[in-house]
């Protein structure tokens, strides 16, 4: 999975619903005048078409500078940049920028333009006719979850921070650019809104398949959004460029490890879903059945002396130990109630959390809440170990 980096240029016509194009940076250097050290030193990277690539790194390491060279808000001192195979440095910068979406922190909305006018800027610059523009504006507002009839004529200061960011994203996407550059676009909103905006970006991306370069300080954000993450050091040196999985499992060096931070394994568990690992099956019985029946099944299995009582619709109700199953009791009262459940869609991190409350394995449910299996602590441990080895390549040994 870490190895599937596309190196052949793709273009728009390539089908597969990938509307993004590949970006290549080749030994790109930026030297600000009056500074001895270059801010970006010989940066080489391929951003695969239709992927989200996240630049993370400490403040001042050159993330913004690197990104802004792609749309030439900053002119590279040397090097070569191609977007969808086209040499970006030979294009007219204004024309180039109309084809590259750009979203920044605080959204950068024009305060004297309405939401509509803000979103319509790039289509206007491209000379679309009025009808097409207004249709497109409506479409974009729907796309980012803003009701046009409510928000169309508002000015930015009449919007919340999160709504402004949505308009910022809508504006960046309005002319359907294959490439989107986002510089800490969600940096200035509260954590909950940020989480929502991230979810929405992922949902949009599922539909649109743009090539997105995303800059952030926040490693967790990078893990959540990135198809690939580039951890950058000073002068934009690429310390590691890989999938979130691989970086979490095996940071390239101590600097990256420091940036990944404590709890790398836990973060990694946010990337995996319960249905992706193996479950075990517990002994089960419905509340309508008798305790003897259940005891028999537990004995027949011969494993651990536990079982799970389900309600009539098959949903987990109670954990029972064999010794709880004295004759004469009813299953609906034996043992203790199930404390926490996870679904097949839950992340392994949620599952681990639930295991800690349950004090062992956790019951897993399917789409309608019905019992699907049990996830054991051991399975999760094994999975972590497996990931480490898979991405290890002997780097640690």
């Amino acid at each position, binding site marked *: 999975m870490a190895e599937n980096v596309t190196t052949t240029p793709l273009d728009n016509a390539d089908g597969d619903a990938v509307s993004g194009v590949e970006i290549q940076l080749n030994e790109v250097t930026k030297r600000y005048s009056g500074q001895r050290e270059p801010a970006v030193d010989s940066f080489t990277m391929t951003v695969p078409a239709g992927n989200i690539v996240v630049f993370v790194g400490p403040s001042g390491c050159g993330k913004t500078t690197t990104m802004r060279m792609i749309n030439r808000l900053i002119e590279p001192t040397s090097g070569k940049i191609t977007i969808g195979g086209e040499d970006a440095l030979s294009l007219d910068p204004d024309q180039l920028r109309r084809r590259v979406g*750009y979203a920044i922190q605080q959204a950068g909305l024009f305060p004297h333009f309405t939401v509509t006018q803000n979103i319509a800027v790039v289509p206007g610059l491209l000379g679309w006719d009025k009808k097409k523009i207004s249709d497109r504006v409506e479409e974009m507002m729907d796309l980012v979850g803003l009701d046009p009839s409510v928000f169309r004529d508002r*000015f930015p200061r009449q919007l919340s921070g999160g709504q402004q960011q949505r308009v910022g994203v809508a504006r960046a996407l309005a002319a359907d650019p294959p490439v989107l550059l986002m510089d800490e676009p969600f940096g200035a909103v509260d954590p909950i809104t940020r989480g929502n905006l991230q979810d929405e970006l992922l949902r949009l991306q599922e539909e649109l398949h743009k090539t997105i370069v995303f800059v952030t300080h926040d490693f967790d954000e990078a893990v959540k959004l990135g198809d690939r993450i580039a951890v950058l050091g000073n002068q934009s040196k690429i310390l590691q460029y890989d999938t979130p999985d691989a970086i979490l499992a095996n940071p390239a060096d101590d600097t990256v490890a420091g940036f990944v931070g404590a709890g790398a394994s836990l973060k990694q568990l946010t990337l995996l879903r319960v249905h992706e690992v193996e479950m075990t099956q517990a002994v089960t019985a419905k509340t309508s059945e008798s305790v003897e029946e259940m005891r028999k099944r537990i004995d027949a299995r011969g494993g651990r002396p536990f079982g799970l009582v389900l309600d009539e619709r098959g949903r987990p109700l109670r954990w029972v130990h064999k010794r709880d199953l004295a004759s004469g009791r009813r299953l609906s009262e034996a043992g203790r109630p199930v404390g926490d459940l996870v679904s097949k869609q839950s992340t392994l991190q949620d599952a681990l959390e639930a295991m800690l409350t349950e004090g062992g394995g956790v019951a897993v449910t399917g789409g309608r809440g019905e019992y699907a299996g049990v996830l054991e602590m051991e399975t999760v441990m094994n999975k972590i170990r497996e990931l480490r080895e898979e991405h290890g390549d002997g780097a640690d040994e």
Partner: protein
Amino acid sequence: MSAFTAESGSRSAERGRLFAQPVAVLLIVAAVLVWAFTTDLDTVEQESINASSILTYTWQHLVLSVVITILVLVIALPLGVMLTRRWAKPAAPVFLAIANIGQAAPAVGVLVLFFLWTGLEGVAAAAPPIAFYALLPVLRNTIVGIQQVDPALVDAGRGIGMSSGAVLRRIELPLAIPLILAGLRTSLVLAVGTATLAQFVNGGGLGEMIDTGYKLDRVSVLTVGAVLAVALALLVDWLGAVAERYFGPKGIG
């Protein structure tokens, strides 16, 4: 909550002023004119205080003010815009210093020096030096107004593909308009006031009445000229306030 009431308070005060100021000006002018025409005037006074000469002086004063305004706009606005462009930024202090000198020097001095230097007379002699004297507020406010536009907005504009000219036209200038208009209002009030000096170079205007009244010791002529000059300045100030209110960008403030 308190911010809200404070804001709406100052708003309603502003609205009241918008209405009250012209009314007050008209009342004062009417009162002075009624007084002037109903008192016994000697022949010297009659020569100045009659409908046709008052209209002529006022008209001359207005024309002069308009010419000055045009000069101020034509010079200070483009100059101010230019001095905020990256390539000209280093020159900004130089031009501001020159404009400061223009304003610090006594207006009469600038006027007379220009007259002596060019040998011109009338509006041509009066308008340029008075414009020079009055242009600093527009120049400074144009520069400051553009500089205070959030650089992130300029960056966003360029970043989504606006040319630098489009960013200037659609973002920077509209957002600088409130300050530019405030500067223009100050400039115009200065200009209308200073235009009373135009009579030194045969520029006409209400200054003639003030001068006549003073030299020939006719208080009535002096009063009418002075009150009309003040009224004109207040009217211009009011026009400026109206402009600020209706031509400012929507969605901010």
